[in-house]
């Protein structure tokens, strides 16, 4: 049986980040985008508008729930993780860890030091 190719590496990153962040507490779009930056030390920066398209898609698929809340005079749409979303996160995270370990095992002997300096040199990935 032919093996399924891996999905585009970066395509699943916003989804993974959002699901992880919403595991802790409910958040609104702007908060999520800022939190992704802060949590990844600015290595991953999510396109400002992209967050909403991912949030809406996840909500349609039942991974998130949303509700409108009025906070400090402003009405905002807050998102929370559903049990289906938690399961989805666990699957995604597991796939990513497997993939990361596989890649690491290939590159660590030869170019890991160079890769580390590249990352710590302030380069970041936009998703």
């Amino acid at each position, binding site marked *: 049986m032919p093996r399924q190719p891996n999905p585009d590496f970066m395509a699943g990153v916003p989804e993974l980040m959002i699901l992880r962040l919403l595991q802790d507490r409910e958040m609104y779009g702007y908060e999520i985008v800022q939190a992704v930056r802060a949590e990844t030390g600015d290595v991953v920066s999510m396109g*400002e*508008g*992209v967050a909403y*398209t*991912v949030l*809406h898609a996840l909500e*349609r698929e039942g991974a998130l729930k949303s509700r409108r809340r009025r906070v400090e005079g402003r009405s905002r749409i807050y998102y929370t993780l559903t049990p289906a979303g938690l399961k989805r996160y666990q699957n995604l995270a597991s796939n990513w860890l497997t993939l990361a370990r596989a890649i690491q095992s290939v590159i660590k002997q030869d170019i890991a030091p160079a890769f580390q300096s590249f990352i710590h040199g302030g380069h970041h990935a936009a998703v």
Partner: protein
Amino acid sequence: MQPFENVREQLLKAGIAAGHVNRYVVELREHLADLTNRERANGADAREAANKACTIMGSDAQLVQAMLDRSPPRALSVKAPWAVFGVLPVVAIIAVSWIVAMTMMQLMMPVMRLLPGQMPSGYQALLTAVTILTGYLVGPLLAALCIATALRQRLDTVWVWAGLGLIALFSGLFAFHASTGAGDPYRAVSLVSVNGHVDGAATLVLVAIRAGVLFAIATFAWRTLRNRQTATA
């Protein structure tokens, strides 16, 4: 013009459900306001903060593409215009007429067997009011709904014209009607029907005139509002 109106227009024209587009635009505006506040807090003046925030948000084309890439839900009026503008109004007209006729039959039970002159004036007024409401309100209301749906989704399809034509025709053909007095000398209410008085050539002409007038007014309103919407977009 409010921010992201171009995004809204492009997504609606791409057939994305209006409710979904509205929410996206609302959230983008909230996000833009947050970014602007952040820039102001960082020392930028109002104009500079607004410009920086807009740049960070990305271009309208990028925001539209980001949404389209995620296969958002398409509007029913785009996926199945034949159902929304063709089938639904006709079914609604027939259903409303039928429900009104059945309700009126129940309400009229106590006076149906009275002689024409004995019917209390309240019942007569109720019959007249319901006949006028169903005969002259259901059609225009449905036509307004049809136009509102098309405008909301920025549709310009032949199905809107077809829908308005069907509403005009069927609202003339199907309407609550009660014959009082003249139909039967021994009964106050002799006939309750939903056939919109189609019982002779004269009434057929009346139905045609009513349908024609409603169609003319509705299509005029539709074209006028559509042109105004296009001009302001």
